[in-house]
């Protein structure tokens, strides 16, 4: 009887396993080898940067290569597909075939993959522990950002930033932050009592209501005329960081390992 049940349930058990298979972009075996990524980068600069630009952000104008950092095709491709694009070129485009030894093509594929992958799946040089000290100390990141509950309220939570952002995005956000804040973090000065003002961010805004989180972590739900208590500021609260190269690298190493669901380090 049990045997019959087992046979009957087998297809369902197989189906139940399907959702455990990761998305196709989880194939990052190449990235486990930092030396390959580095060698690939050197060759990329010689051969590919003419069309795809130095950092992979893509060329301007017709016949230029697409942005490899944001390309969905690159993210979706398996490692062997990336290898194929480089080795054989891409039909119907100006992407040529490269007659190179296999191992060199694999190295280039590893580098292209590293441009596109979330930070956690890329080897990042630097001392993460020292980076943590920079984050919570000298650089003052934790005055506005939290990591696993430690830190301030004016910036986005960075507990999972390694799984959700590419390394290049993290670096860019630190070195060259946009003047305009991302939606949900528009800066306001909030009048909390007569003459007393607090910094805050508008987590949501419309013509009729405003939901503000202040720097002390309190929510203010402003409706109608109360909205006048909040004054929008033109520049995001995020300053550009001016750190020595080694501290910057340590900070990147720390942030790129931040995930809430394992996979770290």
């Amino acid at each position: 009887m049990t045997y019959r049940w087992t046979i009957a349930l087998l297809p369902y058990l197989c189906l139940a396993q399907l959702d455990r298979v990761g998305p196709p972009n989880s194939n990052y075996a190449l990235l486990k080898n930092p030396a390959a990524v580095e060698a690939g980068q050197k060759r990329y600069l010689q051969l590919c940067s003419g069309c795809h630009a130095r950092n992979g952000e893509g060329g301007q104008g017709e016949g230029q290569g697409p942005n490899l950092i944001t390309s969905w095709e690159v993210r979706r491709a398996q490692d062997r597909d990336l290898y194929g694009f480089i080795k054989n070129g891409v039909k119907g485009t100006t992407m040529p075939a490269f007659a190179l030894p296999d191992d060199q093509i694999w190295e280039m594929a590893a580098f292209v993959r590293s441009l596109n992958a979330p930070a956690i799946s890329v080897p990042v040089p630097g001392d993460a522990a020292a980076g943590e000290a920079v984050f919570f100390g000298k650089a003052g990141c934790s005055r506005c950002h939290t990591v696993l509950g430690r830190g301030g309220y004016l910036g986005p939570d960075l507990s999972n930033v390694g799984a959700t952002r590419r390394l290049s995005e993290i670096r860019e956000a630190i070195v060259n932050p946009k003047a305009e804040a991302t939606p949900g973090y528009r800066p306001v000065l909030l009048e909390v009592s007569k003459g007393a003002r607090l910094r805050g961010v508008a987590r949501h805004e419309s013509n009729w209501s405003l939901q503000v989180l202040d720097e002390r972590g309190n929510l203010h739900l402003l409706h109608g005329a109360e909205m006048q208590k909040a004054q929008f500021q033109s520049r995001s609260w995020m300053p550009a960081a001016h750190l020595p190269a080694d501290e910057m690298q340590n900070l990147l190493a720390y942030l790129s390992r931040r995930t809430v669901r394992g996979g770290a380090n």
Partner: protein
Amino acid sequence: MRLLLFALLATTLVAQVSNEELLKGPNQDWLSYIGDYSAHRHSPLAEINPRTISRLAPKWVRNFVGTGDLETVPLVYQGVMYATITNEVFALDAATGREIWHYRAQDARRTAVNRGVAMLGDQIYFETADCHLVALRRTSGAVIWDREPPLRWRSRTRSLSVLLPPARLALFPPSPRRPAKKHGAYGPSRTRESRVRRPGAISR
């Protein structure tokens, strides 16, 4: 001076949901899945009654994109409503329905309906469909911790709510263990709650 210090403290501390409030049960707030620990799910508010019910009118409507099955019991605290769909929590301005923050368990491996969160102090407790228990900051939605389920639960799917037992309080003696039903009826026998004794320590 003492008054000044008190005023300073009052403004620097985020409002905390206390055990006493959880025990007191619903008033204008609704602090746990079942309302209070007698589980009557009854609100003492009297504004809506047989005489006024005909005047009820919709104030706002919110569509949770990506879910066809909304079973959440939203909690309400100080004008903010905390609602869930599978693997996601929303904090909404209860007066307008506007979104204050939104948390998504990025790499959750399964989906199932979700019945709601629990709150204590300045934290929100949420369970993902693949059994991770997550603590979030109530006002900002930032992750405080994410606990993996015990090994024997790794392949399970959960569609429940989180319920906090009142700390240091034994109102109800523990009930003797009953053998689990083979085919549980849709309802209480399926709603086993995750338990958080104190933030950080979990027993289930």
